[in-house]
C-alpha cells in the first residue's frame, strides 16, 4: 500500500518537471539556441508531445519550420527586460525567417509600437548584409524590439523552409546563428 501511494504521488508530482526536462536531452544546441527536431513530427515521443502541447501547440515539422529558442544570452545569463541586448548576425539560409520575443509566459510583449518581431522581409540590414536588433525597453534607433516590462524573456528564431544544413543536427550545432549580447543592465 505504501509503495503504491508513494509511487503514485511521485509519478503525479514529477509530471511537470519531467515534461520540461526530458525533451531537453534530445535537443540540438548551438550557443544560447536550442531546438528539438522531433517537435511536431509523428515520430515524437510522449514527453516531446507533452512539451509541445504545453509550450508550442501547432508546431509544424522541421521540413517546414525549425523553431530555435533562446532563454539566455551568449554568456548563458537569463534574458531579462531590465537589460538591453543586441541580437546580431547574418541572414539564415531559409526561405523566410523571423525573430520574435516572448514574455515569461510565452506571450507577445505589449508595447506602444505593436512591434513583436523582425523578419527577413521587414528588417533593415546593415551595409555589409548583416543585421542588428536592439532588444530593449527604451527607444533605440534602427531595428528596435521593445522588451516592455516583463521578468524573463525568450527569443524564438523561426526558419521557414530552412536550408539543408539546418536539417542536420551535426551541422546545425556548428553553424553561425545570431548572437545575443548583453549591452547594459539598467539595474
Amino acid at each position: 500500500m505504501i509503495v503504491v501511494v508513494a509511487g503514485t504521488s511521485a509519478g503525479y508530482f514529477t509530471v511537470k518537471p519531467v515534461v520540461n526536462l526530458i525533451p531537453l536531452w534530445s535537443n540540438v544546441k548551438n550557443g544560447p539556441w536550442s531546438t528539438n527536431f522531433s517537435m511536431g513530427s509523428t515520430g515524437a515521443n510522449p514527453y516531446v508531445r507533452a512539451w509541445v502541447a504545453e509550450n508550442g501547440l501547432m508546431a509544424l515539422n522541421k521540413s517546414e519550420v525549425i523553431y530555435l529558442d533562446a532563454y539566455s544570452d551568449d554568456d548563458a545569463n537569463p534574458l531579462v527586460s531590465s537589460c538591453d541586448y543586441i541580437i546580431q548576425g547574418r541572414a539564415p539560409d531559409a526561405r523566410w525567417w523571423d525573430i520574435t520575443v516572448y514574455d515569461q509566459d510565452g506571450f507577445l510583449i505589449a508595447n506602444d509600437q505593436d512591434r513583436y518581431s523582425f523578419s527577413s522581409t521587414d528588417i533593415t540590414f546593415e551595409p555589409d548584409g548583416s543585421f542588428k536588433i536592439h532588444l530593449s525597453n527604451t527607444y533605440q534607433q534602427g531595428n528596435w524590439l521593445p522588451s516592455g516590462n516583463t521578468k524573463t524573456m525568450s527569443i524564438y528564431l523561426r526558419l521557414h523552409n530552412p536550408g539543408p544544413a539546418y536539417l542536420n543536427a551535426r551541422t546545425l550545432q556548428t553553424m553561425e546563428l545570431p548572437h545575443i549580447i548583453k549591452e547594459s543592465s539598467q539595474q
Partner: protein
Amino acid sequence: MKKRILWIGLMILGAVAVAFIVNLALVIRIPNTQMQVTMTEKFNFPSNQWVFSPPSSAASKKVIRPSADLLYSILCYDVSQHPLRVTAMLSEYSSISGFSMNTDNFFVIDDNQAKSNPIEVVLISKGMTYQDTTGKAYVITAPSPQGILMIGAVVTSQADLPNLAQIQKQATAELVR
C-alpha cells in the same frame, strides 16, 4: 537484517516502477487534454468551418508563442462520420497543415509544394475511402477523427494585410456526404 534490506530495496523499486507508470500515463494524456481544451474552450469554433483570426498581438492568449508575422485561419475538424473537403488559396509563404489530437503535425503543404492553387485537400478518417476523380485533391488520412487544420500565411508587410486576409477568407470547407 539482510532480509530487511532486501524488502526495503524491493519496496523502493516497486515505488519507482509505480511512479514511472503513473508519470507516463499522465504525460500521454497531456497532448489530448490540451488539444481538447484548445478546441472546445479556447477556440470554441463550430466544427468543420474555417475561422479567420486577426494578426496576433499582446492580447492573443489562446495559444502559447503565437507568431506575430503570420495570418491564421483555423478549422476544428471532425471527420468521424464523413470526409471533409477543404480548399484554400495559398499566397506566397503560406501553408496548410493538420494536427491530430496528440499534437502531431500529420501533414503540411506549402505554396511551393501545392499541385494546384487553390489547393484542395480531402481529409478522411481511418477506415474511410475516398475516390478523387479530379486528380487535384490531396486525400489525407487523419490519425484522429478530430483535430485542427490551419492555414498560415506570412505577412510580409502591413500594406499586404487586407489582401492576404481577403485571400484567406476564400477558404472553403464542406463535408462530403
